[in-house]
């Protein structure tokens, strides 16, 4: 095996490592052998472009990796995700509903518009906490009825592997922190992206991008919770991944504190104090 072949083969092995564990364990070695056979064939036949073959094989295998991960999203998984979204949304709405009613009743004579954006903010915080903690609670309930075995088969490894999920969630958090810092120092390209050419005029694309940035910490929390959910479903311990648990609880606490501070800040408005803002 030539040094080039060895290097490409090792890189291909890394790519195969991205397959779901069950698939990798079953076919990884054979796929590596087949790739090496094809490489040798291309190298033997003068005139056949090895680079073209390597590129095609890597792209085709990367698509295979994505396909196998997508196929793991079972109908049950989709139903569970929809249930989590629905239950979190409903609980958040029920939490915010009394505040909405107080606002409507106590401020009906003040000729003010209903502060919809404020209530969306109020609703989002417990919704986000629910998205992080509800799957953990459900997995824990399910896991207590199962004999501990440490792991379940046929699941995606990218999000259930503690290291890769930590890397993804920390990457998302770092991106958010970077964006907050750049906004704070008034970095012109970001300010233009978020505020548009005229900062005095409302800029919808910028508002949508800001909303997307706001969802990143939530995504980080959901990703960080996946190894915990995976371990609990298999009957494992809640503290099997202490770092992830700290990360999830930290984010949930941050959102809860934000919700509490907003509530304290806006409380006079709910009880009907004029010019409360």
């Amino acid at each position: 095996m030539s040094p080039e072949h060895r290097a490409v083969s090792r890189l291909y092995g890394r790519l195969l490592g991205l397959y779901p564990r069950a698939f990798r364990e079953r076919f990884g070695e054979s796929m590596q052998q087949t790739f090496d056979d094809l490489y040798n064939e291309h190298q033997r036949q003068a005139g056949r472009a090895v680079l073209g073959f390597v590129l095609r094989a890597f792209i085709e295998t990367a698509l295979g990796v994505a396909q196998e991960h997508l196929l793991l999203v079972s109908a049950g998984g989709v139903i569970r995700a929809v249930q989590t979204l629905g239950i979190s949304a409903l609980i958040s709405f029920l939490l915010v509903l009394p505040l909405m009613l107080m606002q409507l009743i106590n401020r009906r004579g003040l000729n003010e518009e209903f502060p919809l954006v404020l209530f969306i903010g109020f609703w989002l915080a417990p919704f986000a906490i629910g998205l992080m903690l509800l799957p953990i609670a459900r997995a824990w309930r399910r896991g207590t009825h199962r004999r501990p075995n440490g792991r379940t088969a046929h699941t995606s490894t990218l999000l259930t592997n503690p290291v890769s999920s930590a890397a993804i969630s920390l990457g998302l958090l770092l991106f958010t922190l970077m964006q907050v810092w750049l906004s704070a120092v008034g970095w012109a390209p970001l300010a233009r992206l978020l505020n548009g050419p005229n900062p005095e005029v409302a800029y919808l694309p910028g508002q949508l991008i800001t909303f997307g940035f706001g969802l990143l910490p939530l995504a980080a929390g959901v990703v960080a919770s996946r190894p915990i959910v995976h371990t609990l479903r298999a009957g494992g311990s809640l503290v099997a991944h202490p770092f992830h648990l700290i990360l999830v609880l930290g984010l949930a606490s941050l959102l809860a504190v934000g919700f509490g501070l907003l509530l304290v800040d806006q409380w006079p408005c709910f009880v009907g104090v004029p010019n409360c803002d």
Partner: protein
Amino acid sequence: MFHILLALSGGERHGYAIMKQVEADSQGKVSMGPGTLYGSLKRMLDAGLVDESDKRIDPEMDDQRRIYYRITGLGAQALAAELERYRRIVALAQQRKLLPRGFYVA
């Protein structure tokens, strides 16, 4: 899947040999990479259309031991059903005189 079943109808083959057989059967028109081949093989194994044998060395290749795949009874039935479907389509085309000149079906 049809091409893989057709390739395995001639006997047990390992992954690389299946690819080469598919290429030969289709006169180079069908060429699949490892991602497509093993993704298909997984689904065919799960469906019981193919089976895998123990690892062994291919005397025509290097000294590495390879997993061989073989068609099952169910796989042979599925292949026969698909070929029968093609035969009926060709027969219908023949009946309607849609086949090109020189194309003959017994």
